């Protein structure tokens, strides 16, 4: 597999669910120097800002979303002492309790893995063009629809 193909697997926006174990193994296999792996898994909760939520639909800007996620991975690899960072975000309708987003950071030691993982999810939420439509008993609401 070419480097470009490998990098494409390390940053993905996809409709289907992902296996956390398989993604951990993808990161683990990148370097034998990895001694600490930190994971953030975002899942769909049934409540938001006082409203019940039945399910959530994620919409993304195809092309720009992937580009921003690649940027986050590249900056994390440059700014933290880590060996690999993987980001997978789902789009489409997601049922309560299901996986939404996964970040995995692999480093020699845990401290940098934790730091990179936290930075990456915070940054993802700031700069990635992904929108969340909550389906509630009283209708659909785009999150932050009432700025």
């Amino acid at each position, binding site marked *: 597999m070419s480097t470009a193909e490998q990098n494409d697997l390390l940053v993905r926006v996809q409709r289907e669910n992902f296996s956390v174990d398989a993604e951990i193994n993808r990161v683990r296999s990148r370097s034998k120097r990895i001694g600490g792996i930190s994971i953030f898994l975002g899942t769909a909760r049934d409540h938001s800002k006082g409203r019940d939520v039945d399910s959530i639909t*994620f*919409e993304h*800007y195809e*092309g*720009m979303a992937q*580009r921003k996620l690649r940027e986050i991975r590249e900056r994390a690899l440059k700014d933290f002492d880590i060996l690999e960072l993987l980001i997978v975000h789902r789009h489409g309708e997601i049922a309560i309790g299901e996986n939404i987003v996964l970040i995995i950071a692999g480093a020699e030691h845990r401290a940098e893995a934790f730091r990179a993982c936290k930075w990456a999810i915070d940054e*993802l*939420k*700031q*700069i*990635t*063009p*992904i*929108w*969340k*439509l909550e389906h509630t008993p009283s209708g659909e609401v*785009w*999150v*932050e*629809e009432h*700025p």
Partner: protein
Amino acid sequence: MSEGRMITVKLFGMTKSLADNQASLTLALGKHQSVKNVVELVNKRYPKIGELIYKKKILVSVNQEIAHEDTKVQDGDEIALLPPFAGGSLEGGVA
């Protein structure tokens, strides 16, 4: 509009709801125009969207990068209106 051309503006999230659920807008734009002119056209047709752009709640992107009001718009550019992202606050500037 003899010198004009049609540009397409992609819509996402709540901007689609505010524009009668269209996925994009087609606007007639003159030559040598900038994001500011695009926003004026959007504002004429959908004042609610225009207001949110002026309030910096909706960002404008050109070729998948956040643009400013003086960013030039050229033939073939990919323009989009980006409402607040799911994660919360937005990065800096805007049109």
